[in-house]
């Protein structure tokens, strides 16, 4: 039951439209700093573009996808009309307003501070306030997801919450809490300086606040993808979820341990104690657990589908999989990229290995592979799967869809593998140009060129994606039926309270935040003399 199709469509269209813009900027950036481009006579343009690319891809695009998908899940999994539709639209328009407010100063070059802010660099206050509005808009969604679940529980006491909704709400709580770090940084530290109320800022404390957000935000981006793994893929390829319980545990683990691990981003920072770095490093290792569990469960679910289709043999069943089904293809690509990206993540996790690649191009390669690759390719798949239910029209050309997915996969591999490599060679991040003529870094030139070619492959795929969606709005009408999610092999009749509610896990998440972040934040906030003069970018 998808009653509010317009709401979901609006979120998706806006998400993919801004994605298209940011993708174009990204491809341009890959090109201009590669040996194929000529050096920019104004390097600020590069940082401007980078700020826009990061802000859109990091804050706006995935948030809109999670929101749109979340509303769709709420209506279809709970089979209940969305409660609070007006609020949902208010949240949407807040994001629109916030994005415009943030992007105007960025476009004018008044806020080229990158999406990571990094004070004491300070840009236009409108940029920061815009970002805050985007976050506030998304918090409305968080509240609505919680309220809708509560309404459903009131009407269905004791029933297991459908897995998709359980995961969706877990993701929304994770986002609500993880956004608090950046919100505190913006509201308490940056905005007062940007508007001129204060002249100094504690750069070290700001980095700690930001790490609170910056790592767990990745898992917020990841949740829709994991929901697709568990709740869409098995149904789409004719299988069943191997285990409903394991799926719940995976999302619970994300909720609990995704957040108190962010300080692995500050391994190289002088303002964080070595003890807390170790604690965060250990908890970072833990966050691999839900992914390992998921890989197992999904592979088993896929195997079930294959065997139901007559596949047999130890590995021979793979041949029986519906490879012409875009969902199957997307899942396979996503898993390959998740595998490589995850292996890279294990390297970033330890101080010792991280120190050889920290803040090099390896890191950008890593999160593009995980986010742009493994996660976003499933966003495409989600859109393809939902589209007929939203538009009442079917996709005619599955081949085009497959081409798009192939292009994205190949493009992402061509882009990110050389990117990782130049990172190992020590190529630093976020530079507008490099002197590849210098013999010391000339060996990196070829790899960077490949990455740029990959960037254009991705751009082609992205454009194709938008074309497919647009054509999907005008293709022949179809009765898509109710939107359904996968069933488990052993569909649970009852679920233990702890696995059917979020309270315990939210409490653990907050508790771990206090143990892992409380002291570092308090001690920096209370120490005198750690604030440093602001440096206004583009100042005259």
């Amino acid at each position: 039951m998808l009653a509010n199709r317009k709401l979901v469509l609006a979120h998706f269209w806006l998400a993919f439209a801004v994605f298209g813009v940011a993708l174009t900027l990204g491809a341009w950036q890959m090109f201009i700093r590669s040996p194929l481009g000529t050096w920019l006579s104004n390097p600020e343009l590069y940082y401007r573009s980078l700020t826009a690319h990061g802000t859109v891809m990091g804050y706006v695009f995935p948030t809109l996808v999670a929101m749109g998908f979340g509303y769709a899940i709420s209506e279809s999994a709970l089979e209940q009309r969305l409660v609070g539709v007006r609020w949902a639209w208010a949240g949407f328009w807040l994001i629109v307003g916030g994005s415009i407010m943030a992007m105007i100063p960025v476009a004018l070059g008044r806020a080229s501070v990158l999406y990571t802010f990094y004070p004491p660099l300070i840009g236009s206050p409108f940029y920061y306030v815009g970002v805050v509005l985007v976050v506030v808009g998304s918090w409305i969604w968080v509240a609505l997801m919680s309220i809708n679940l509560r309404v459903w529980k009131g009407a269905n006491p004791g029933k297991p919450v459908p897995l998709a909704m359980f995961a969706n709400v877990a993701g929304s709580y994770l986002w609500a809490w993880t956004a608090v770090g950046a919100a505190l940084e913006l509201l308490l530290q940056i905005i007062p300086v940007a508007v001129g109320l204060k002249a100094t800022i504690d750069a070290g404390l700001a980095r700690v606040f930001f790490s609170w957000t910056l790592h767990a935000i990745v898992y917020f981006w990841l949740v829709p993808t994991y929901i697709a793994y568990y709740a869409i893929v098995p149904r789409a390829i004719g299988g069943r979820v191997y285990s409903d319980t394991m799926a719940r545990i995976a999302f619970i683990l994300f909720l609990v341990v995704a957040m108190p691990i962010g300080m692995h981003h500050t391994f190289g920072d002088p303002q964080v104690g070595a003890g807390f770095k170790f604690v965060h490093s250990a908890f970072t290792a833990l966050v691999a657990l839900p992914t390992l569990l998921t890989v197992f469960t999904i592979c088993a679910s896929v195997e079930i589908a294959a065997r139901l289709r007559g596949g047999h043999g130890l590995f021979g069943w793979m041949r029986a999989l519906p490879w012409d089904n875009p969902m199957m293809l997307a899942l396979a690509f996503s898993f390959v990229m998740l595998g490589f990206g995850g292996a890279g993540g294990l390297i970033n996790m330890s101080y010792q290995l991280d120190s050889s690649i920290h803040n090099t191009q390896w890191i950008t390669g890593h999160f593009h592979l995980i986010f742009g690759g493994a996660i976003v390719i499933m966003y495409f798949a989600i859109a393809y799967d939902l589209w007929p239910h939203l538009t009442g029209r079917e996709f005619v050309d599955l081949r085009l869809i497959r081409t798009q997915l192939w292009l994205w996969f190949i493009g992402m591999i061509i882009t990110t593998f050389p990117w990782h490599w130049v990172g190992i060679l020590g190529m630093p991040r976020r530079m507008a140009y490099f002197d590849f003529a210098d013999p010391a870094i000339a060996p990196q030139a070829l790899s960077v060129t490949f990455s740029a070619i990959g960037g254009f492959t991705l751009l082609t795929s992205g454009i194709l994606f938008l074309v497919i969606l647009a054509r999907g709005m005008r293709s022949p009408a179809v009765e898509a039926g109710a939107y359904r999610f996968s069933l488990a092999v052993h569909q649970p009749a009852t679920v233990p309270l702890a696995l059917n509610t979020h309270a315990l896990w939210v409490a653990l998440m907050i508790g771990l935040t206090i143990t892992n972040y409380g002291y570092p934040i308090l001690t920096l906030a209370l120490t005198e003399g750690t604030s440093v003069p602001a440096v206004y970018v583009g100042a005259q």
Partner: protein
Amino acid sequence: MSARDLFTLTNRHFKTSVGITAAIFVVTAIVGFIVLPFAQPWVQFANVWDAICSAAGVPQRSAAAAAQAQDKRLSEVVLTSHTLSRPNQEAIGRGATLAQRCAICHGPTGISRADSPNLAGQYAAVIYKELHDFRSGARTNAVMSPFATGLTDQEMGDLALYYAFLPRLPAYHPTPQLPKPNIVIYGAPMRGIAPCGSCHGSLDNKVGSPWLEGQSEAYMKAQLRAFAGGDRRNDISQQMRNIARAMTPQEIDEAAAYYASQPPDIVKAVD
């Protein structure tokens, strides 16, 4: 089971999850705060408490290391983005009076007729810093040093605000505009040279760095050479010496000639 029972020890999930989480935290904390600090033979801790505090990141003021005595006078100015960032009419008025004695070299409108720097519309922090350095001896000049010696901090601030307030005018002897040389546009990354404009105004202004459009070519050349040769050392922590030393003599000539040929409106407007 109701929601209240969720947080009781009779709930298996509560017991297990809180227990495991607490255990992981305690174990990693013991390893991180006690075992690892003492496992590092290259760091000495007074006692366990010192080790724990250090690992927790209790901030300590950097120990006053026995620094070498400075063999020559260096700049003692402290600049931040808020240095003289608020002009006021009174200060500008006082500055105008004081500036009468500067006019011989720097021109009545702040535009020099000789090879002294033009000061009209220069950033206030720059003028303040140079005056301060002339007074302290961090920068020396036969003409300027005696002038600066008698100035108080407030007078230097007034002068700086006055000149910053003056409109930016074309140079006294305008020359045809030259194309931008590569060293100015791109710098030279591998030699550690950023584009000039990233500090000197056309892209961004690093506090204390002047904008250069329309300045005397001879003056800029002489200053770049002085920075490169170490004769001029009042740039805080070598920020300009690092750049000038890495420039070739030809690049110094090109950069000086380029900036001298530019009209002042090339610099972004002051807000």
